[in-house]
């Protein structure tokens, strides 16, 4: 067994011991830290990332976030509450680790939710994007290095990175609910600094609609491990090159909260509709 696999099992076994349910759910949500929409679920058990062994090589002390075992109606689910951010100095492998742990726990489907800025001028801050595809412009990915073939193939295919069928189901669901969403291509950059006007223009030119910092490494790991993925972006800021203005953290937060509020009931219903 590879060192990587041992670490995955160590974390997975620890979490299995904390699982309050009879069976572990095959469905998980991976989101940024503490969005208001997780209140739509009943949190049964909370395990802080810091307490999950083994610690990352770059240390876990400052890691912000937790694994939530949550319930909704007759369903239970796992929520990774908080991303392992590359811009905080963690390796891509660290971000990938929790995804592999989810797979080891028996998760087969992950819904990712990331905070994004919109490059597409027709979008609106304070709304929700449905992500169909991504571009990796982070200059790194979690698969570089030796491959453990028991986790996934050496050369994973990315033509269905966001499962076409599942995404189409979600799309249909949202339309039925008359919920406004923006179909998007996501571009992953490292952050944490905000984007210059020229960068915003470049990202738009090469085909992106929304921009974020966290989704790409997690999605690549999930595809590698054979998991089915779908993704939402919570649009907290406008990044349209020709009308770029600086916005305050407060404004960003209020945009985010506005989107979260409208999204909460939809997300809960979406979760209960997942087969």
């Amino acid at each position: 067994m590879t060192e990587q696999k041992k670490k995955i099992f160590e974390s997975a076994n620890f979490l299995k011991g904390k699982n309050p349910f009879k069976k572990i759910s095959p469905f998980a949500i991976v989101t940024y830290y503490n969005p208001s929409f997780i209140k739509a679920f009943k949190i049964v058990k909370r395990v802080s990332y810091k307490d999950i062994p083994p610690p990352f090589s770059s240390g876990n002390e400052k890691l912000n976030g937790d694994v939530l075992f949550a319930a909704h109606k007759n369903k239970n689910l796992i929520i990774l509450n908080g991303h392992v951010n590359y811009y905080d100095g963690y390796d891509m492998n660290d971000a990938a680790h929790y995804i592999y742990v989810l797979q080891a726990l028996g998760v087969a489907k992950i819904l990712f939710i990331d905070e994004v800025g919109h490059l597409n001028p027709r979008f609106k801050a304070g709304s929700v994007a449905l992500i169909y595809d991504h571009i990796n412009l982070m200059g790194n990915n979690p698969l570089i290095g030796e491959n453990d073939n028991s986790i996934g193939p050496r050369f994973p295919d990315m033509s269905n990175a966001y499962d076409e069928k599942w995404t189409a189901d979600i799309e249909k669901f949202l339309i039925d609910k008359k919920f406004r969403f923006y179909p998007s291509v996501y571009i992953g950059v490292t952050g944490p600094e905000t984007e210059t006007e020229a960068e915003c223009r470049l990202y738009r030119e090469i085909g992106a609609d929304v921009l974020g910092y966290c989704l790409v490494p997690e999605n690549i790991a999930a595809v590698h491990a054979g998991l089915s993925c779908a993704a939402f972006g919570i649009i907290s800021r406008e990044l349209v090159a020709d009308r770029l203005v600086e916005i305050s953290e407060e404004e960003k937060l209020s945009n985010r909260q506005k989107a979260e509020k409208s999204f909460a009931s939809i997300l809960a219903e979406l979760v209960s509709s997942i087969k």
Partner: protein
Amino acid sequence: MPDRRAVNDTISFIRGLITDSLPNIGIILGTGLGGLVKDIHITHKIDYKDIPHFPVSTVESHHGYLIFGTIAGKNCVIMQGRFHFYEGYLHDDITYPVQVMAALGLKNLIISNACGGLNPIFHKADLMIMRDHINFHFTTPFRGNGYHRYCNRHPYDRDLINLAEGVALENEIKIQKGVYLSLHGPHLETRAEYHMVRKLGADAVGMSTIPEALQAVNHNMKVIGLSIITDMGLPDILKPAALHEILETAAEAEPNLTLLTEKIIEKMIV
């Protein structure tokens, strides 16, 4: 940077084995040029793991041997098995063999690879001469190492490109020319990424070759890059690519690439 002493160690090990005249042409075999080995009059075959300071390949479909011999009567050294960025090697490691070749006095380098076609006029199993490249590795072999003379205007030698085109015409081999863009890999690209790299000016996308080409040019070697288009990355009609299909396409194009390479070597002025 692998220090000078390491390269000297490797060189004296090789010189200890090779007593006859040293080669003047280096070849890096990528996916789909493996068959060239059959046509070499082999004088020495050395396992990478026996060569001091040599990195070791981890990809299953790649062997790791440094082969000395003659092709078309010319002395060559062939790398059977190469090192990729996605395996976790630094550009220093990837280009270590090229530094050794340069120290052995080689002046010409032929690099082959398998890659995905982006230019819609290309077809699966086409051969492509690398006209130019775009480095998307976010690093280079010279990072922190200084450089000798590197000029990146024309990494691929114009005379060798002309020679290769002539050879292809003479032997009725269909050939494309294009710009090769290298990404990290190992995963294949998403639709949005194929769309992006095409828009950025690439005709083909792969995961190798650029580090070696950069290092070779830095050592005043003449470089030619030859690609096999093993699958088409057309974003609007993208289908999942299967590794076995990619290898099958590489095998289909292999006879042509082998012939082209041999004829280039035959006509090369060394």
